[in-house]
């Protein structure tokens, strides 16, 4: 290895064109020529693609030929290619940290107009890096072991798929689900588009596989309470809410449900979107996983008052699975990686009062219709109006409810066009009603999706291109009497229409969970402005987050349909698996350390550290940093009143030389 010398560094500078991405705005040749004049620069070149193999080879060759001991590459964001170029330095025989990257693409050519100002900026940034890199010291890369267990948060189809993939690969998985059963929204669907296969038929085998898998610890009715640690070594505390049922003893016979003092269901059944009633003790649905009942503390008389005959306990008999003394339980587990698959929540249709949801009884949300058309649903598959008997003769399906609207959500929810068509087909199939789809644009860009659209058109479903302005019950003519009237412009015909229907279906969009901000804070990841979990890179790292070891899958990252969700869940599982199989991960060596001779023991630094990495050596009366715990934020370095704390890669001399050089003219 070329040992960097303190006295006379030999620096190589490389200016990347990135095709025309940089060179189209910045005069790369001029930057390279100017950089050749900077102190200690031995070689300065510009090249079309520095990240390409020949580009990297160029660096390696120069290191040997010109005995370079420091490298600067001005190209794209270090968040993208720092790793690549450090690797190139290492292959060239140089310590990878004797390298500095300059971002002249994202921070320059892509955000500025072509001209002298952009080129000057590239020169300034490169000069600063040259000045800084001279202070870089060779560093040892540190690694940390990866605990092989994985935690998956969310038991919808994404969580289920990821859990099975990992468990089948031999990893132990903790699957945590907030609801009493796994299955998520997919379990509520009747059919899936565009193939129209039955959702339960494809989902429930997977659910039972999860329930039975020896490698999966399934915790339903549970929530993550606390997350500590870092990649490879997370400590997660899970709160298991009391379901007042001893899981191991319950066999799901439902005898307690039958025996409950409530003879009929009285409370809104969550699974059926409130279209039917359940008792305080209930099983969410027949295929619930785990297949056991629970007692809802909000509605159970015994839990609330203690004054109940407890017919359920009696019915359970010797099994003694009911335990009213159950309390919330905290479980702490150690895992190396975490996959978040917390999904979405449907848009609340009441936020758009002009569509009449909650005002007119026969306005439904799409999820209610999913339950209505389902043979195991509240009406056993009969599509009827709220009165429970009338078959609708005409149905209007309103697309984009809570989507593509600046006042609610700007995004396209991606699944509504397709599921609206699916529901149109099913409603028509069940009732032979005249079905209208009111859409802004039909978005059917998946395999077999456009063909499905075509099929629907052939079935005689109406497609009216226009966003519905209002669903109302005031009338203009006889035919409108007793109906809901949809006011819409038929934009393709070019005039406004009033269309009377019996039933309105609001195709509600997808939105982030109300508590997504709390969840992401808990796991220390970012959200997009809209509230979806933010991926590390939209194209190149779609399931990674900015926090190592935490992955995202499914609709928590953005609206997506089942095929995409399953694919992404597999990808997240693969990413976790690749860490586990590697056994360890390299850490940035940007940790801080105390120069004991300069430390006065003033203790300013100690409370600065959120990871309790700093302690006081009571014998020497100086601060000591545990490098294994240090994450390299540098807050203690900034606080140290003596400048006795140094930080690798972000030390005072490195940063101050950068400041000076960035401003030098």
């Amino acid at each position, binding site marked *: 290895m070329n040992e960097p010398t303190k006295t006379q560094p030999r620096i190589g500078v490389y200016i990347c064109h990135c095709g025309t991405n940089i060179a189209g705005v910045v005069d790369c040749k001029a930057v390279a020529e100017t950089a050749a004049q900077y102190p200690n620069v031995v070689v300065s070149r510009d090249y079309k693609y520095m990240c390409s193999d020949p580009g990297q080879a160029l660096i390696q060759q120069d290191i040997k030929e010109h005995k370079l001991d420091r490298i600067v590459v001005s190209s794209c964001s270090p968040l993208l290619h720092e790793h690549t170029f450090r690797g190139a330095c290492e292959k060239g025989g140089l310590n990878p940290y004797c390298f500095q990257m300059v971002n002249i693409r*994202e921070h320059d050519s892509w955000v500025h107009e072509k001209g002298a100002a952009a080129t000057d900026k590239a020169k300034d940034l490169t000069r600063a890096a040259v000045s800084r890199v001279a202070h870089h010291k060779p560093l040892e890369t540190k690694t940390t072991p990866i605990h092989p267990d994985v935690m998956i948060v969310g038991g919808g189809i994404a969580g289920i798929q990821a859990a099975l993939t990992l468990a089948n690969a031999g990893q132990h998985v903790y699957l945590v689900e907030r609801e009493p059963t796994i299955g998520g929204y997919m379990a509520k669907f009747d059919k899936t588009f565009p193939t129209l296969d039955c959702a339960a038929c494809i989902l429930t085998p997977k659910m039972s596989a999860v329930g039975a898998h020896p490698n999966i610890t399934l915790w339903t009715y549970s929530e993550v309470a606390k997350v500590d640690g870092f990649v490879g070594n997370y400590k997660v505390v899970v709160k298991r809410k009391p379901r007042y049922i001893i899981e191991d003893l319950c066999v799901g016979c439902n005898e307690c449900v039958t025996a409950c003092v409530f003879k009929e269901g009285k409370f809104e059944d969550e699974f059926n979107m409130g279209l039917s009633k359940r008792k305080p003790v209930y099983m969410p649905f027949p295929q619930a996983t785990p297949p056991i009942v629970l007692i809802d503390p909000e509605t159970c008389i015994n839990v609330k008052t203690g004054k109940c005959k407890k017919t359920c306990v009696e019915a359970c008999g010797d099994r003694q699975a009911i335990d009213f003394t159950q309390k919330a339980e905290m479980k702490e587990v150690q895992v190396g990686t975490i996959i978040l698959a917390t999904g979405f929540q449907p848009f609340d249709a009441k936020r758009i009062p002009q569509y009449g949801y909650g005002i007119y009884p026969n306005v439904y949300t799409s999820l209610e219709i999913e339950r209505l058309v389902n043979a195991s649903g509240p009406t056993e598959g009969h599509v009827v109006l709220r009165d429970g008997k009338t078959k609708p003769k005409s149905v209007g399906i309103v697309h984009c409810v809570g989507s593509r609207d600046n006042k609610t959500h700007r995004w396209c929810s991606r699944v509504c066009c397709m599921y609206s068509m699916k529901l149109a087909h099913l409603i028509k199939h069940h009732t032979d009603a005249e079905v209208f789809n009111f859409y802004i644009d039909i978005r059917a860009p998946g395999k077999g999706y456009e063909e499905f659209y075509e099929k629907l058109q052939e079935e005689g479903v109406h497609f009216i291109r226009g966003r519905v302005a209002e669903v109302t019950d005031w009338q203009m003519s006889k035919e409108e009497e007793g109906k809901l009237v949809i006011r819409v412009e038929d934009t393709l015909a070019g005039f406004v229409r009033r269309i009377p229907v019996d039933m309105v279906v609001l195709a509600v969009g997808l939105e982030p969970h109300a508590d997504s901000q709390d969840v992401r804070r808990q796991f220390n990841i970012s959200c997009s402005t809209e509230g979806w979990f933010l991926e590390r890179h939209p194209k190149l790292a779609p399931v990674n987050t900015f926090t190592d070891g935490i992955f995202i899958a499914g609709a928590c990252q953005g609206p997506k349909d089942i095929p995409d969700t399953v694919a992404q869940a597999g990808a997240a599982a693969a990413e976790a698996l690749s860490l586990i199989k590697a056994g360890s991960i390299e850490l940035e060596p940007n940790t801080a350390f105390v120069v004991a001779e300069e430390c006065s023991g003033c203790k300013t630094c100690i409370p600065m550290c959120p990871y309790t990495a700093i302690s006081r050596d009571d014998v020497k009366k100086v601060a000591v940093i545990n490098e294994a715990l240090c994450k390299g934020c540098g*807050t203690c370095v*900034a606080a140290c009143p003596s400048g006795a704390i140094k930080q690798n890669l972000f030390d005072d001399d490195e940063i101050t030389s950068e400041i000076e050089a960035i401003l030098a003219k």
Partner: protein
Amino acid sequence: METKSNNWEPRIVAFFCNWCTYTAADLAGVSRMKYAPNIRVIRLMCSGRLDPQYVMMAFAKGADGVLIGGCHPGDCHYVEGNYKTLRRVTLLERMLHDLGLEKERFRLEWISASEGDKVKKVVNEMVEQVRALGPLDMPGRFADWDKEMEELEAHVNHSQKEIPAHVH
């Protein structure tokens, strides 16, 4: 102060935290948002790494403005580094004001990784505000201040004829 040359352009040094604001600036790039080219970003892992000395030094070395970008409160990648930033910046703002710097020259903004448009907005706004104030040019001011010493230095060092040591 008078503008020294007509084509003066403000120079703004920015310190962005790696996880939120630097990433947001990357996003602005990926989204091809156009903003003023007067800003030079220095990447720190956390805004909590910002030593107030850096701000002072940037001004002393010729910056016309200094921008700090960090994660929103509660969002710090390092749990609460940004609260430390806020405490330091609060006091620093006051001190810089007492040292005669206009408040528009120093700015702290919380910009999350998804707020590329906020990078654009903040940079453009700040460049315009600083442009309206004119150059700070501390190096130039120091040179002006020290001009008063030139004459005397020349006088002492040249008028007195040299008396070599050890003549006696």
